[in-house]
């Protein structure tokens, strides 16, 4: 991988910082977030690696990961972080940027009948759409 001054100072990193309100430089990679994460086993990159990749300006690797869509915003990582970095906010910022810019909704209208058939409560449907579509 190539780390360059351009990638370290890219606009998208600034957007992530602005939208999330978090400074990824505060992370010292102790891994507490990963250790605490209840869905870590399903992730392709681990929570602390998300922060590390962002520290190195490797935004694409984060954006193309499964991890950001697996994060359930359960805030366990945020509550235990010794550096007060709210990783849930960072994950959300990356998701939001993708959804806004590429319009790449993860749920489509045609999925609805199946979701409704399962008896999913309204809260689940709304939150799913809020998290996965724009």
């Amino acid at each position, binding site marked *: 991988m190539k780390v360059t001054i351009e990638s370290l100072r890219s606009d998208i990193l600034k957007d992530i910082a*602005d*939208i*999330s*309100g978090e400074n990824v430089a505060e992370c010292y990679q102790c891994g507490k977030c990963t250790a605490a994460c*209840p*869905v870590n*086993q*399903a992730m392709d990159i681990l929570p602390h690696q998300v922060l590390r990749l962002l520290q190195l300006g490797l935004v694409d690797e984060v954006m193309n990961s499964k991890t950001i*869509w*697996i994060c*359930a*915003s*359960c*805030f*366990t990582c*945020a*509550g*235990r972080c010794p550096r007060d970095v*709210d990783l*849930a*906010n960072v*994950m*959300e*910022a990356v998701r*939001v940027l993708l959804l806004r810019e590429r319009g790449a909704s*993860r*749920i489509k209208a045609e*999925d609805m009948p199946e*979701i409704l058939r*399962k*008896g*999913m*409560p*309204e*809260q*689940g*449907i*709304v*939150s*799913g759409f*809020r*998290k*996965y579509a724009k």
Partner: protein
Amino acid sequence: MRYSYYPGCTLKTSAAVLEESALNAAKALGIELVEQEEWQCCGAVFPLATDEIASFLSSVRSLDAARSAGEKLVTICAACHHVIKRANHVIQSDGEVRDKVNNYLELDNYYSGQGEAIHYLEMLRDDLGFDKLAEQVKEPLTGRKIAAYYGCLLLRPAKVMQFDDAEDPSIMEDYLSALGATPVEYPYRTECCGVYLSVNNEEIAAGMVKKIINSARRSGAEAIVNACPLCHYNLLELQDKTPQGEPVLPVYYFTELLEEALGVKREVEEKTR
């Protein structure tokens, strides 16, 4: 005791039993929960992106209405409580957002976070008192081993929610004890159930649910209670089934047990649960 009450979408539809049992029990306890005249969906998830202010508006409207009525705002659904409480916190701590929201809403009085959002359980613990609750129990749930499932939304982030010790909570166990039941503590009681992952990542959510359910069962639980329609759905639908197709561990809303213990249990059609 009189409160403004915010129901939320799900309690009016698929989780009707949660609302009905909560209101029924409140009535029995002499607590008046007055449904707000105009409420809108809270948005179900709190907007973590700092630039999504529009999602606060319905919360602030309800908070402001409760403040004007001079009442605390009670919610029963964990998700609604989470969103409203956090929205209030943002209004209290972020002047810029506060101004924007006020400009948009054009309320009679500037709203700066004076309203107080509490969850039904907090109402029982802090305003009524679990000791007073215990006194009103007519049919104690003696001998029933119940696991409390907290999930995420009530507890975290702890600095904002201030619901209980986020790592080692006790409010639901104390609640169960007040009802006469034997609370079962198990390691995964504060772990996430997968929430909306069940919409399109069902497998992952199922793995999370099984961890929770099996941990509770291994600790001797006969049933599990929760306070969130989505947790309820996940815990019920995604857990293992007996050969007869029954869930291996029954799942209840916390208020259902309350009704029962207070001796005001209604006959409920199974499918509304």
